[in-house]
């Protein structure tokens, strides 16, 4: 959590950014042309169903004078930067194996839909895959894919820093992709379809009032392995959704790995009736690990705003009456202090590093060295940049050597960052659950409600119910970019940074679990939660009322 910065970027910097990106694309195309073209596996001898299956599947086999001044040194720097940054890339982790598996399973799945062809085609699929592998015909991520990814990553980062229009960024990546495909250097991958699907799902933010009511009721739901202990955290009611968020514990039974594959959502059914006798049914959406389960009970139809109360029944437990009329949720006010987009981008990368450094191996990827190097090359950021200086200080504090911040004087670490680092080894958090109901205003095209806090000795987690607006970008790393930064400060003065740690997206809605690091201070009695985005920040303080952990 940091602020302040330089003036917004001008047209020259934006032009240099686009030029840099396009020159990088040309360079990557040239590099890819140095590799052999891809070939699809020969299907001439395969059966009709297999050939049909192959056709409908994604390619399984893997798929003027003014300008002269800024451009000339820029070209050199694009190339030099690429070499320097890429020199640290790690080798691919058996991509061929992954792709081959994908090809086999994908083909098998499609063939199984062909009437009467499953057995015969399955054998042929295996044969084709084996043959393809042997002949080296299945290609996974290669130079072309890696180059496209580099351009895509930088385009995304430039767009996040508002150095390039989204349409132009997409056009560049798409153009490179098309150029590679037109030369048989690339076959597209399946994830595009999903991403575009998700993108198109992004609908609208809730048009009407969003109500959140803290609950704090403990219930037990019977399952074949024993009772699932749940805490009903809060009811969220909006024009397009009605949910009761829950946090719970699964029954302690042997067979850890197998239990993760079980569909624990099956027994988690709920119903509700309102004051007018209307009935609503709910199903569970969320996730679980070996012992914990978090998520929401999503009700259909959506109760009308006129309903005075709801009686919620989960499993076979007693009903819980929730008063809707007159409810006054805690709301957070928006402080519209927009940040310089480049500075915000740098701070977000620093926070990302801080957020995920507890995950071994994630830090290096989080900092986005290519983007930072490029920003410096095009003059979008100078060594005097406050955000860059903060990043340099953070890296120094963490003992990370990064050429991208070489020669950058260190700034003082922002208090929240320093606090998180000072308490990073704390394991003194209280054990319990505290229901919350904090409704946040729209920030960066998102809305969200925080509905509960689960605290454990080494960390804590927040439950988030959210909406994703139509203009929102897709997460660039570990999905955290979907939401504004979430920070919390407990009443004992300890700061906490939030990282997404599970949940689900769909239909423009999200239910997420945010892991707070470090743990809540044992003497804390309240928590100030801040959402920090490009368009501003919003904060609210909530009391902590610990209940036993389910």
């Amino acid at each position: 959590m940091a602020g302040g910065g330089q003036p917004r970027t001008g047209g020259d910097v934006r032009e240099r950014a686009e030029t840099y990106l396009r020159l990088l694309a040309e360079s990557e195309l040239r590099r890819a042309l140095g590799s052999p073209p891809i070939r699809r596996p020969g299907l001439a001898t395969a059966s009709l169903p297999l050939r049909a299956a192959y056709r409908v599947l994604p390619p399984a086999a893997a798929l003027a004078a003014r300008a002269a001044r800024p451009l000339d040194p820029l070209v050199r720097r694009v190339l030099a930067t690429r070499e320097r940054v890429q020199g640290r890339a790690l080798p691919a982790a058996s991509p061929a194996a992954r792709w081959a598996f994908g090809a086999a399973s994908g083909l098998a799945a499609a063939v199984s839909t062909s009437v009467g062809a499953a057995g015969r085609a399955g054998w042929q699929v295996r044969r084709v895959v084996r043959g393809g592998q042997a002949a080296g015909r299945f290609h996974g991520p290669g130079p072309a894919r890696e180059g496209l990814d580099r351009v895509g990553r930088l385009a995304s980062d430039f767009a996040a820093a508002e150095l390039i229009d989204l349409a132009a960024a997409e056009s560049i990546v798409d153009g490179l992709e098309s150029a590679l495909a037109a030369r048989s250097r690339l076959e597209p991958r399946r994830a595009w379809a999903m991403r575009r699907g998700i993108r198109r799902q992004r609908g609208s933010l809730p048009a009407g009032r969003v109500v959140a009511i803290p609950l704090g009721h403990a219930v037990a739901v019977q399952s074949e392995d024993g009772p699932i202990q749940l805490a009903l955290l809060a009811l969220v009611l909006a024009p397009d959704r009605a949910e009761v968020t829950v946090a719970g514990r699964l029954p302690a039974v042997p067979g850890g790995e197998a239990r993760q594959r079980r569909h624990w959502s099956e027994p988690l059914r709920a119903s509700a009736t309102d004051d007018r006798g209307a009935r609503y049914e709910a199903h569970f959406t969320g996730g679980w690990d070996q012992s914990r389960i978090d998520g929401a009970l999503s009700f259909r139809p959506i109760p009308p705003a006129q309903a005075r109360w709801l009686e919620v029944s989960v499993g076979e437990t007693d009903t819980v009456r929730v008063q809707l009329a007159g409810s006054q949720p805690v709301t957070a006010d928006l402080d519209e202090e927009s940040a310089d987009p480049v500075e915000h981008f740098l701070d977000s990368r620093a926070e990302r590093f801080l957020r995920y450094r507890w995950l071994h191996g994630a830090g290096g990827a989080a900092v986005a060295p290519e983007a930072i190097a490029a920003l410096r090359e095009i003059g979008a950021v100078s060594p005097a940049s406050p955000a860059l200086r903060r990043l340099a200080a953070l890296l120094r504090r963490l003992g990370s050597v990064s050429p991208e911040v070489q020669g950058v004087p260190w700034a003082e670490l922002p208090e929240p960052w320093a606090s998180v680092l000072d308490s990073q080894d704390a394991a003194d958090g209280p054990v319990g659950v505290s229901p919350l109901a904090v409704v946040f205003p729209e920030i960066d095209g998102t809305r969200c409600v925080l509905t509960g806090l689960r605290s454990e000795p080494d960390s804590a987690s927040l439950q988030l119910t959210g909406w994703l607006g139509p203009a929102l970008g897709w997460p660039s790393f570990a999905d955290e970019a979907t939401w504004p930064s979430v920070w919390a400060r407990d009443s004992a003065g300890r700061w906490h940074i939030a990282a997404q740690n599970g949940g689900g997206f769909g239909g423009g809605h999200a239910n997420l679990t945010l892991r707070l690091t470090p743990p809540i201070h044992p003497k804390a009695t309240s928590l100030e939660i801040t959402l920090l985005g490009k368009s501003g920040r919003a904060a609210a303080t909530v009391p902590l009322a610990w209940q036993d952990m389910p």
Partner: protein
Amino acid sequence: MTAPWWATFGPAEATRRCGGLEHRLRWEAGRLTVPDHPEAEGELVLGALGGDQPECIRLLRAWGEHTDDLDVLMLGPRSSADTLTAGSRDAEQLRRGPAGWASHAPRPGPAPGGVIPGMPLTWGSLWFSTLRSFAVNARGPSRGTAAYGPGHAARATQMARLRAARGGAHAFMPGTGQDPDRELARRAELLDLLELGPAFQFRLSAAVAAARSQHDPGTARPALAAALAGRLAPAVAAWLHINPDDVSCSIGVERAITEQGGGRKGIRAAMPVSWLSEVWAPGLALVDGHLVTGIIRAGFPDADVLALEAPGGEPAALAVQCQGDASSSQLPRWRITAP
């Protein structure tokens, strides 16, 4: 009076199936014509009014619509060694749309309980992915299909490491305002045009570069700078037997090839955008070990050019002549006829 950009191009011809017959498409003097359709203009009008368009007429119309399309320079060839493999089959797949895909396309996204991969969102992708996208979008994943469980961050870290290892992290942001169906149709048209062969690819590229060099590039400057770099760098590299990555190219009024200087490795090359249409596209970039920087007298098959023998020198006037069949689908080969 300055010669037109096409003055150093010979005619080119290709054939296409049209109405069950083999028809000719002929490019000459900067224009594409369809000799087997004497009433081509009338057919174009009828097509614009919604009538059926013969294949030749469709290509004729498409050619006209792409002569200032920067996508031509992005997709098109960078050198004579740069072979495009896309063709009408790919174009047809784009044009056909998602029919037949939705019922067979595997469910998109991660396995149940898995993470949402952080791969780049790309727009208007070619071939199968585009078709699949439309098929999948038409169905719309149900809520919760992208669900992932607690411990996601740990898996996300694994993903991040893999992405870092293969350079594949990221995001791509949503596009603004383009009509995907129209874009697909436009891309399909371009593929059809490029399938006419290298001779037509270079002529179409030249047409675009010529159109774009006639006025201030404005917001297209970055795209034109990249288009120039993508073609000038390989030419200079081939001339000097160096790596194209060691050539820094820029748009410039002055036509100069110089050493980097200052103890830095590499070559600086500056050319106007018109170099693409006047020199590169007609195959004149390298002639008998000389890098051609400009045209003194444009003509075909004989022309007078300015060319460098070595970086940093003054260009010398040379008389050159195109060898080979004027209507060949292959690129022309020029030779020096007089220093």
